[in-house]
C-alpha cells in the first residue's frame, strides 16, 4: 500500500505542476485584466493541436515545438484581447464573460470542423525513470521541470523586470498606473497574451504524454477554476501550489477508493473553499 501511495503521489505532483501552469494563466488574466477567460480551455486544446502538427507534420522536436506554441499562444492572446476583450473591458463582468465564451465557441467550432473530435496523440517517448516503487515516463518529468521553469520565469519577470512591474502596477490600480505614464491598454493586451501563453505551454506539455481531442481543454479549464479558487484569484504562485494540491488529490485518492470519487472530492473541496475562504488559501482580501 505504501509503495502504491508513493507512486501515486509522485504521479500526482508531476501532473500538478502542469495543472498549476495552466491555472497561472487563468489567474494572471483575472488579476490584471479582471476578466474570467472562458476561452482558456480552447487555447489549451489549440496548443495541443499546434504541438501535434509541429511534431507530426513538420518533424520538430516537441520541446522546440513547445517554444513556438508558447509564442503562438502569446500572439493569439494578444489578438483575442484586441478583437474581443478590449471593447468590453469596462463593461459589466457578464459582457467580458460572454465575449471570451464566444471566442471559446469560435475556436472549438473551427477546430471541430478541421480536426473532428477524434483523439490525437503525439508519438513521442523519452523512456522511463524508475526509483523503488516509482516508475515515471520521461515526458512527465520533463513536463514538470518545464512547468517549474516557466513558473519561476514568470515570478522573475513579474517581480524583477520593468515590464513586470508595469503589469503589477496596472493590476493594483489601473488609473494610478496610467497617471504614472504606463500605457495600460498595451499592458492589458500583453498580460492577456501572457496568460494565454501559459495556457498554451500547459496544453503543449500535456500533449507530450496524454492523447487529446478538440474538447480536451474543457476538463483542464475546469481544473484551472478549482485550482484558482484553491490558490486565490489573481495569485500566480497560489495557483501553482493549488495545482500541486489538486494533482496530489487526483493521484492519491484512487489509492484508497474508487477513482470515480476523485471529482466528488475535488468539487467538494471547491465548494468548501468558496464557503470558508472565498479568497482562496493564498488569496488576499480586496
Amino acid at each position, binding site marked *: *500500500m505504501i*509503495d*502504491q501511495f508513493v*507512486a*501515486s503521489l509522485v*504521479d*500526482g505532483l508531476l*501532473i500538478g505542476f502542469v495543472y498549476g501552469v495552466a491555472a497561472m494563466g487563468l489567474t494572471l488574466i483575472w488579476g490584471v485584466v479582471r476578466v474570467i477567460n472562458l476561452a482558456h480551455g480552447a487555447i489549451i486544446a489549440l496548443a495541443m493541436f499546434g504541438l501535434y502538427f509541429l511534431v507530426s507534420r513538420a518533424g520538430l522536436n516537441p520541446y522546440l515545438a513547445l517554444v513556438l506554441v508558447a509564442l503562438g499562444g502569446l500572439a493569439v492572446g494578444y489578438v483575442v484581447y484586441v478583437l474581443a476583450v478590449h471593447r468590453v473591458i469596462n463593461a459589466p463582468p457578464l459582457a467580458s464573460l460572454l465575449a471570451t465564451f464566444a471566442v471559446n465557441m469560435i475556436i472549438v467550432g473551427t477546430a*471541430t470542423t*478541421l*480536426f*473532428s*473530435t*477524434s*483523439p490525437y*496523440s503525439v*508519438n513521442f*517517448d523519452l523512456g*522511463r525513470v*524508475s526509483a523503488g*516503487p516509482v*516508475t*515515471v*515516463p520521461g515526458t512527465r518529468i520533463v513536463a514538470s521541470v518545464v512547468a517549474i521553469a516557466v513558473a519561476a520565469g514568470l515570478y522573475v519577470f513579474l517581480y524583477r523586470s520593468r515590464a513586470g512591474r508595469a503589469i503589477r502596477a496596472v493590476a493594483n490600480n489601473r488609473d494610478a498606473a496610467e497617471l504614472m505614464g504606463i500605457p495600460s491598454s498595451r499592458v492589458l493586451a500583453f498580460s492577456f497574451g501572457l496568460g494565454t501563453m501559459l495556457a498554451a505551454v500547459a496544453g503543449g506539455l500535456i500533449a507530450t*504524454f*496524454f*492523447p*487529446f*481531442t478538440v474538447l*480536451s481543454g474543457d*476538463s483542464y479549464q475546469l481544473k484551472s477554476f478549482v485550482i484558482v479558487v484553491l490558490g486565490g484569484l489573481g495569485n500566480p504562485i497560489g495557483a501553482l501550489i493549488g495545482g500541486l494540491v489538486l494533482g496530489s488529490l*487526483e*493521484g492519491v*485518492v*484512487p*489509492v484508497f477508493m*474508487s*477513482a*470515480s470519487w476523485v471529482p466528488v472530492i475535488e468539487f467538494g473541496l471547491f465548494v468548501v473553499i468558496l464557503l470558508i475562504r472565498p479568497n482562496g488559501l493564498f488569496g488576499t482580501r480586496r
Partner: protein
Amino acid sequence: MRTIGSRMRVVGSALVGLVLVACQAAGGSPPAGSQAGASQPAAAASGQAKGMVVGFTTSLTGSLNVESTRQQNGLQLWIADVNKAGGIKLSDGTAVTFTAKSYDDESKSDRVQQLYTTLINDDKADFLISPYSSGLADTAAVIAEQNGKIMITAGAASDATHKKGYTHVYQSYTPASRYLTGAADLLKKLDGTAKTVAIVHENDKFSTDVARALTAYVTQQGYQIVVNEGYDSGTTDFAAFVNKIVAASPDAVMGGGHFADTSTFAKQLFDKGAKAKMIALLVAPAEPTFKDIGDSAIGVIGPSQWEPTVKFSEADAKTANVAWLGPSVADFVSGYNAAYKGDPSYHSAGGYAAGLILQAAIKAADSTDPEKVRTAMDALDLETFFGRTKFDTTAEAHGLQLAHDMVYIQWQGASGSLAKSVVWPESAKTAEAVYPIH
C-alpha cells in the same frame, strides 16, 4: 481532414447509389461488372424497382469516431454493392434497392434519441441500423421498438439490450458476455500456473457488461481477481490504475473499453513498466491503427468480431448445412480496400454484415413488409464472410446473437513491423501466442 475525406466518400457512395437507382427506375442497363449480369435488364423490365431507406447515425465526431466511421464505411459499401448488383430480386420481379439516410450523432445518446426519431418520422426510414457502441445502440433500440421498426444492432455487443422484451431488434455481434472469456481460456491453455487477473474497464454499458461476465467467468475458472475497477469514459490519465496493477503484480491484465481510452491505457501500462504476462484489452487492439502506439502494442491481445484472415466460406456453410450469402472474405477485403484505401477492421466488416443480414431476411421473406421480414429474421440461420448469424427467439432474450464467435488477435513482431496474428481459438489461429510478453 479525415472526416471531410470520409464524408466525401460517403457522399460519393450515396451519389453512386442514387444514380444507379435512377438508372433502374428508368429501365436502364445495370452497371458494368454488376453481379446480376445479363439477367438484370429482364428483371428490371418485368418488375419494378423499389427503393428502401436504411436509416442510421454515425459518430462522425466524438470519442467513437474511429470505430463508428469504419462501421459506416462497411454499411455504405454494402449499399453500393447491392445496388450495383441490381438490388434484391423478389419473386414478383421487384428489385429492392437501398438509399442511406444518416446523421452525425456526435457520440452522444441524447443526439441518438433525437435523430432516430427524425429518421423514422421525417425521413421515413424503412429499416434501421444501430449506431456504433452498446450505449448508443441501446438508446436507438428503444426508439426502433416503440415505432415497430426492424433494427440491426451493428457494433453493439451488450447483452442487456436484448433482454428487455424487444421484438424488432437483432444483434449481429457476439454478445459482450462472451467478449473476453476466450482470453481467459487462452491464458489457461498457455499457463496452468497463472493465478491472478486484474480487470480495469471503462464505466460504460458495453465494457461493464464484458467486465461483469469476465469477472464471473475467471472466478469460476479459479483465478483470483486482484484489481477490479472501472474508469470514466474519456479518461486520459491511467496512472492511478496502473499503479494499482503494478502493486498487485497480476499474471494478466484484462479490460479496456473503446479505441481512444484503451489505446491510452495500453500505452501507459507500457510507459509505467507494468509487467503482466498477458494483456488482453477490448476493441482497440483489433483496430489496424493500434500499432501507432509503437512498442506499447507489442504482445497485446484483443478480441475481434472478425479478421481478414478468417476462413468463413460457402463450402463451410454447405458443410454446416447453413445458407450462405456472399461476398467472400477476399472479395470484401479487396472491395473495401478499393473503396477506402485501407484495411477493413471488424467494425467495417460488421457494418457490411448488418446490411447482409437485412438482405438475407428480405430475400427469405420475399417481401419488404416489415412483419414478414421480422419473421424471416427470427428464422435466419446464415453464414457470410463475417461468420455465422442466428438469433435468439425466446421472449427472455429475443434478438440476441447466438451463433457468431469471436477470434483473438495479438500484435506480434518488433516495433515498426508489428502485425496482427490470430492466436485463438485453435481452429482459427494463424500463429502461436507470444507468452509471457514480459
